[in-house]
């Protein structure tokens, strides 16, 4: 009989927080910048420099903890994790081991097999490391400390997941909550959300856990799913062959579709964790907690329900729009400026999604403002521009967030609906297309569509099609 196996998965998710400055100094967290320009004595580990906790980082960490039903640790501390590597300027990372800021939480996920709670063991705050740049010659390496001290939280789950589907659902759920909080943009590709996956397998029905491996270098949901499948198969094959799974850290190569040993448990370093004496304990008082609770946003479920009550738009649209906090904000703010919800939704669902897809962008990357979308809708409502022109203006707005009113004015894109101005153009079109004119006169009603098109073309799209239609009928 073939044995049945169960995969047991736990996640360590690193999320880069959206604070403008670093966790222990005032340097910018902005991406890019020439190497070592976003640095100071603190984040380059200069002798005598001292860390001071950024309050914003604590607020984000607590907000994420509350959103994931965690207990907030009222007396929390930072610890030093000691290890030597040049990307880590002090040769210790400031993290939290003994008293992390959040513990014992959970989030609910929904998959095809239904709803399920995934436990969160803890969430702790820590600093990111710098970046090593290895010279091609292999003779030397350079280090850029711009990333050193960028704030991170690490969300450690319980080993509660059993499939890639559940893992993806859990990550999607975390990403949604954190994006709604504005605590991070959570982009896997850019590394602002990184997941290390702990996997073990055991025979179905077995109570104890098998030996686990930790998989690193997972840069997309697809890579995570493939890595889980690959590692599950590898471990089952080992067990079936009578061999043992070795506790180790493995690196996933998505190109090759397989993983490789990075380091085994035997190589594991002794990090000599101890409380950082340069930082004082973090005391979370009731007032601070209450303020953060007050500021918690309306999360997706509540928003979906409210949209159903307040706006006459399809459930499908609601699902897409609330799938991104940024898009939902854009929708609500545009509606608040007086635009009809259905029209706003249409622009988001059709043109916006098309352009995002074409440009390989996420909804979080949308840059046009609600004010300008509302103005564009107003221009179409008043028939100042027709739908063809509107799409053209929208593309411009999507790319550069231009002011549609000014753009239409400057480019002379206003619809011409004045009969006098259009009459001569229509007459010319009739004169130049005798075949279509004859077809129409012979009862081919559809031929008029071609003549409308020709007129629109001659008018570079700016004519009011209704007026053109009317004029054609009159002159024919």
């Amino acid at each position, binding site marked *: 009989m073939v044995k049945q196996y169960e995969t047991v998965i736990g996640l360590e998710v690193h999320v880069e927080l959206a604070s403008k400055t670093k966790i222990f100094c005032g340097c910018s967290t902005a991406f890019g910048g020439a190497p070592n320009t976003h640095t100071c004595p603190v984040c380059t580990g200069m002798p005598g420099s001292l860390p001071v906790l950024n309050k914003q980082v604590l607020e984000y960490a607590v907000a994420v903890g509350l959103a994931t039903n965690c207990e907030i640790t009222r007396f929390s501390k930072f610890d030093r994790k000691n290890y030597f590597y*040049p990307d880590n300027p002090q*040769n*210790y990372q400031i993290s939290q081991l003994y008293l992390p800021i959040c513990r014992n939480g959970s989030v609910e996920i929904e998959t095809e097999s239904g709803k399920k709670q995934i436990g969160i063991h803890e969430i702790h705050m820590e600093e990111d490391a710098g970046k090593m740049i290895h010279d091609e010659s292999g003779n030397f390496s350079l280090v850029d400390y711009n990333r050193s001290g960028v704030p991170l939280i690490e969300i450690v789950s319980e080993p509660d997941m059993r499939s890639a589907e559940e893992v993806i659902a859990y990550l999607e759920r975390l990403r949604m909550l954190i994006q709604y909080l504005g605590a991070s943009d959570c982009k896997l590709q850019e590394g602002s959300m990184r997941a290390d996956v702990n996997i073990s397998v055991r025979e179905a029905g077995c109570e104890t856990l098998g030996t686990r491996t930790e998989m690193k270098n997972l840069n997309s949901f697809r890579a995570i799913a493939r890595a889980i499948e690959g590692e599950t198969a590898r471990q089952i094959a080992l067990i079936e062959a009578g061999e043992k799974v070795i506790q180790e850290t493995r690196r996933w190569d998505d190109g090759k579709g397989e993983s490789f040993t990075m380091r085994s448990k035997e190589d594991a370093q002794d990090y000599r964790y101890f409380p950082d004496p340069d930082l004082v304990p973090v005391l979370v008082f009731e007032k601070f907690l209450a303020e953060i609770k007050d500021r918690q946003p309306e999360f997706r479920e509540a928003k979906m329900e409210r949209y159903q009550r307040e706006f006459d738009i399809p459930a499908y649209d609601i699902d897409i729009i609330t799938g991104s906090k940024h898009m939902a904000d854009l929708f609500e703010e545009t509606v608040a400026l007086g635009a009809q919800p259905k029209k706003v939704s249409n622009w988001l669902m059709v043109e916006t999604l098309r352009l995002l897809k074409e440009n390989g962008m996420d909804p979080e990357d949308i840059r046009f403002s609600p004010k300008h979308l509302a103005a564009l809708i107003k221009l179409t409502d008043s028939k100042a521009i027709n739908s063809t022109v509107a799409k053209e203006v929208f593309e411009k707005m999507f790319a550069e967030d231009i002011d549609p009113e000014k753009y239409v004015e400057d480019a002379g894109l206003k619809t011409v609906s004045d009969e006098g101005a259009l009459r001569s153009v229509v007459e010319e079109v009739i004169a130049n297309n005798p075949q279509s004119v004859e077809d129409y006169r012979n009862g081919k009603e559809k031929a008029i569509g071609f003549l409308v098109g020709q007129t629109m073309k001659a008018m570079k799209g700016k004519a009011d099609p209704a007026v053109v239609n009317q004029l054609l009928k009159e002159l024919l």
Partner: protein
Amino acid sequence: MDLLTMTATQLAAAIKEKKVTVSEAVQAVLAQIEKTEALYHCYITVDKEKALERAKEVQKKIDAGELSGPLAGVPVAIKDNLCTEGLLTTCGSKMLGNFVPAYSAQAVKNLEEAGAVLIGKTNMDEFAMGSTTETSFFGVTKNPVNPEYVPGGSSGGSAAAVAAGECFFALGSDTGGSIRQPASFCGVVGMKPTYGTVSRYGLVAYASSLDQIGPLCKDVTDCATILEVLATHDEKDSTSLNRNDTDFTAALVEDVKGMKIGIPKDYFGEGLDPEVKAAILKAAEVLQEKGAIVEEFDLSLTEYAVPAYYTIATAEASSNLERFDGVKYGYRTPDYLGLHNMYKKTRSEGFGAEVKRRIMLGSFVLSSGYYDAYYLKALRVKALIKKAFDEAFAKYDVILGPVAPTTAPKLGESLSDPLKMYLGDIYTISVNLAGLPAMSIPCGKDEKGLPIGLQLIGDCYKEKNLIRAAYTYERAVAADVCANTEADGNGKGEV
């Protein structure tokens, strides 16, 4: 008028009254350095040109009425573990032998804003690890009272520079007695304030939870005045206190009537030199005669302070000193094969024996499997020691005892027996473990003519009690605590 016999505050007053110029004061100090430095070796770096230039700037500001504080124009020496922008900061180590900081420590900035003129950087035990200033990579400093003896440590260069008249006052740092003990050995006044009173920003850390910056100076008035300038809240240091009681000069009052002074019996047991003991008890009598209520009590736990201290301090040091790796600044071994080898050789060659010993000890007590048994237990002992002091301060305003069990040892006698050297810290280190303020003031000399230091310990935030008791004592005995300006460089400079 011999400038060098003046205290810092007397000098500032004379400058203010235009009896002396800042340049004259700086030149007098530089001349003294010229005369005695070759023998004493108080400094690692003397910044002669910049000091003369700065003297002119400060004089201009004083003349323009922009600077009028009690330290304006006074030449100061800074221990070489305090960062000074653009000026070599070595920590007495080969590891930082070429390190020029891009910024100044907050304590140094405070002094500069007050118009003090930085003369140079003083010698010290490597990374402040030692009690004799003999572990410095840059050679030993000799005690100006008798150059056959050590000046104490780790702030030995600072204490010696004050005693030799090579500056008017100096900054030191005190992790386990590193201000008080050299002050005691060199016959000057030194204070370690309440932990958090002086910003540690820019102090190259030895043991972060114990390190505190403080003054070494000629008398109690100077001490209170300097501390007032140093004690400011600093947002760059998470452990910096925001105090509103830093008007320390207000405590320069000659009155101890009714002050309750406790003498811990534990501090007078085995190992204490009889001459030191006699001098301390005599000082207690002086204060009693002035109206203080003096009694003996049992402090307890004293024997656990040394092991607890050497566990906590070395644990922190092992981590604090990890950043010295040859990657970013300081020494890097010239020949290496790969990263790991570079780390190993750089640190093996860059650190001296005492530093390596403490890094190894600290790494050990933090290792997995030993953490609870050593580090956590030491933290519990630290808490108990604090509790013992709390109980004592419920009864007494000031605790009085010796700074060190003996006067200064001879050069070369200490390093061969580190354990004995560590035990020499027995009376000073519990003060750091409990975060308390404590002072060392001269209270006589032994038969060899070596100074003996009286230690006054106060409760947290109670520096004023110490200043009041010390000031009263100083007035009562009219002890000669001024710099040993007779020092002539041949070792017979006692006054």
